């Protein structure tokens, strides 16, 4: 009788232990990454993830189509030179090796802005879907950054003047909206750097030059 009660106690405790182990592991697996996010933050996060997953889905569809054409060509014994060329154009355009043209915005900046203010503008435009950008005809690719205090900003090897234009290709309304929204980046800049004026002009057609930078690394090599 007593032995039986002991066994029951142990059974009950081990059961509870098991439940708690599972609960704890689940909490750590899913909850931990989102700990500290309010419902409002989570709503923004979900909207962002949803939006970006759609873009990834479109890319998957594009790649599946491309692979389909290539496979058909191979099966028929055809050469895929056109597909290779199209692929090359697409990747070069994205990387900034080729000049680009399209709708977008021209952002005219006047006054002593600092490097991080410029980078904030660029980051905001990228977040709003800017596809290709340049500042005073210098294509913005990885490695080209605006640095320094107001009045002494460099862009790559070049000194940036007090007035310059940031051109960005993308959806003009979306790019304009993201910069000019209340509490947005322009509003923040006018609070922190009041002597700077930023003027956004949506354009149907805007040109962005190719980079003159060597983009293939000399200290890294492809990892297989």
């Amino acid at each position, binding site marked *: 009788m007593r032995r039986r009660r002991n066994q029951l106690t142990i059974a009950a405790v081990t059961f509870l232990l098991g439940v708690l182990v599972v609960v704890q592991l689940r909490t750590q697996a899913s909850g931990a990454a989102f700990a500290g996010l*309010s*419902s409002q933050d989570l709503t923004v996060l979900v909207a962002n993830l949803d939006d970006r997953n759609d873009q990834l889905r479109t890319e998957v569809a594009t790649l599946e189509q491309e692979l389909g054409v*290539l496979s058909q060509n191979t099966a028929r014994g055809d050469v895929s*030179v056109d597909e290779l060329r199209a692929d090359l154009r697409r990747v070069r355009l994205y990387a900034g090796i*080729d000049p680009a043209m399209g709708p977008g915005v021209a952002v005219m900046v006047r006054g002593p802005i600092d490097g991080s203010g410029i980078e904030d503008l660029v980051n905001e435009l990228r977040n709003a879907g800017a596809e290709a950008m340049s500042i005073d005809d210098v294509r913005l690719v990885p490695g080209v950054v605006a*640095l320094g205090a107001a009045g002494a900003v460099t862009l790559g090897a070049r000194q940036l003047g007090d007035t310059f234009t940031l051109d960005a290709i993308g959806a003009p309304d979306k790019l304009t909206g993201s910069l000019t929204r209340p509490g947005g980046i322009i509003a923040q800049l006018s609070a922190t750097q009041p002597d700077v004026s930023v003027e956004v002009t949506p354009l149907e057609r*805007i040109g962005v*030059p190719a980079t003159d930078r060597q983009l293939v690394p000399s200290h890294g090599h492809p990892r297989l």
Partner: protein
Amino acid sequence: MTSMAARLRSIPSWQITLGAALLGLGFLIAAQLAAQGPRVRYTTQERAPLIETATQLQQRQDQLKARILELRGQIQANEQTSEGSAEQVRQLNDQLQQARIAAGLIPLTGTGIVLQLQDSQEPVAPGADQADYLVGARDLRSVVEELWAAGAEAVAINGERMTPTSAVIDVGPSILVNAAYLAGPYQVSAIGPDDLYARLSASPGFVDLIRTRAQGFGIQVSIAEPEAVDIPAFAGTVTLRYARPEPSPGASP
């Protein structure tokens, strides 16, 4: 008497089992309570479905990225076996490989450094903003900008490759890079010249960042210089919707 001795022998065994189980239980209850008590408590009813949705979307994103990398690999393999005018195809494939490396579509390995940034452990000073004690998007962008300026040739944050379209933004106390939601600690990996670390630590901007963020608020910054730094490929979209190739270069309006 013999039955008494048997009981004495038998008692410790279950007591030890029970004791061990209760000890484990205690730990787990404490861990669970600690895990449920983040920096700020929010009402659980509205958060639970949102957290579930976010988790599902994140898992879906991982699958989509894996699929993109898989398809690119298959396309590349197919292109390289493409026959015909061998010389022309070979040249095109060489150009494609160079363009893919330039675009960040190929994983790289090389010399470089890894910086780790972690939220401050210091207590928030009276009247101070708690957000200042967390690693923010601005911190990561500054580190990335300083790395580029110091000569880095490829950079990634927690495995997210920095490309021409990469944005780094705050979502509440955490950070969105490319399409991915990242939580700390944040590791910024960079491939660059042998003296990348020396160049970075000599930069006034980097020194300033360390002074204001690490010394000012206790943001934990550590730097490692492994023998080889691995940078993954960009697993996102490179298909542009608005930009088109322009036949003649540099014709800005």
